[in-house]
């Protein structure tokens, strides 16, 4: 076997091994999307009911609460960025990071200081490399987040928003995550979670099909303020939980797509490499034949010469 042919053969072998790995990753990601989607579905009833309850309190009571009223001059905002722990998911993490950068610029343009909170190793690495300050970060659960994880993430954010901005608290709470639209489409989005804007709640109600419902006058137990006090942290947790779940589904979908194109590319590469290998083999054979023919005729010439 010629040297050229051997090189091609070795490369084909290497690419085939890579293709097997990417194919396996694609399959794993595909099966996890379904699981993640099911979790998103399972968390919907709670989110919907909680949304209704928050709308009911916010519209039905005149209670002023730090979490529902806008600060007159918001000085500081918290941004929660949700990325993945692992790579090989195409542009998934970098798209989310870019969306967070845009939001940061916008908030900075409005004269607000931005505190960054990060979920996922990729986001932490991005900020760490640029030596930017991160208020707090969490890693290790982006594949399949549990409600407890959402609670852990929400706790410092709620604490920050309840503090006065003069004492290091924040006035606004934004969340950047990748929304799962379908298997093929995932969009990075940024949402303002707090303070609540009632139009946003209406939009949420529209999605859950309760738009236009006239909310009855509720009797609050023990009081509207207490209910709101207890309700809003749960609301934040539930929103974060939902965002984490959607982000997980999006991550798997992005990884599946990235791995599918990697597998396809490996297939193309194998095809063109084996064409080259065939050509090299053919060239080798042709060369060998011409060498034999040349050798034979040289031999014939030599014997013909010696006969004379």
């Amino acid at each position: 076997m010629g040297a050229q042919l051997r090189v091609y053969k070795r490369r084909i072998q290497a690419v085939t091994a890579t293709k097997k790995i990417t194919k396996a990753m694609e399959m794993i990601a595909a099966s996890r999307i379904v699981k993640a989607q099911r979790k998103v579905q399972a968390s919907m009833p709670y989110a919907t009911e909680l949304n209704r309850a928050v709308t009911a309190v916010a519209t039905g009571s005149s209670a002023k609460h730090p979490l529902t009223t806008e600060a007159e001059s918001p000085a500081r905002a918290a941004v929660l960025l949700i990325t993945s722990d692992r790579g090989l998911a195409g542009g998934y993490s970098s798209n989310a990071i870019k969306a967070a950068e845009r939001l940061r610029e916008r908030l900075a343009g409005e004269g607000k200081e931005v505190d960054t909170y990060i979920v996922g190793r990729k986001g932490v690495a991005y900020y760490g490399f640029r030596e930017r300050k991160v208020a707090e970060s969490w890693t290790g659960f982006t594949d399949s987040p549990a409600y407890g994880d959402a609670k852990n993430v929400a706790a410092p954010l709620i604490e920050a928003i309840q503090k006065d901005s003069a004492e290091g608290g924040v006035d606004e709470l934004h969340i950047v995550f990748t929304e799962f639209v379908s298997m093929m489409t995932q969009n990075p989005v940024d949402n303002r979670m707090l303070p609540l804007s009632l139009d946003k709640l209406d939009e949420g109600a529209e999605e859950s099909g309760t738009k236009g419902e006239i909310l009855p006058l509720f009797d609050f137990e023990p009081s509207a303020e207490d209910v709101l006090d207890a309700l809003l942290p749960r609301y934040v947790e539930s929103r974060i939980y939902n965002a984490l779940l959607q982000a997980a589904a999006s991550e798997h979908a992005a990884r599946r797509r990235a791995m599918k194109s990697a597998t396809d590319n490996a297939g193309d590469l194998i095809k063109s490499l084996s064409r080259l290998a065939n050509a090299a083999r053919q060239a080798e054979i042709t060369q060998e034949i011409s060498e034999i023919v040349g050798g034979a005729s040289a031999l014939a010439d030599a014997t013909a010469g010696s006969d004379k």
Partner: protein
Amino acid sequence: MAAELHVELVAADRSVWSGEATLVVARTASGDIGVMPGHQPLLGVLESGPVTIRTSEGGTVVAAVHGGFISFADDKLSLLAEIAELADEIDVQRAERALERAKSDTDAAAERRADVRLRAVAVR
């Protein structure tokens, strides 16, 4: 036919129980509260404790609820809880072990959770 109310018992990550009921008893911050069809609209904070649902078939469903909310309007009642378990799903031995462990570790939150589970089983 007696009036009924529709109950949805949902935990953060799943829907635990839903169906028609004639009476729901739950513990709010200011004491036990019973809700029957036609109750005035209500929104309350739940304490950790057992929730008893009398279904329209005459059966009783008991669930352990770890904090949450009760909201009632238009004969629709929703019980929202971060964690909710039906009494039938609770493994008594495991809960007892958890209670022992929590007591020896002086982990108040875990002790309360285990206690709520056991109380829900006792009501059943």
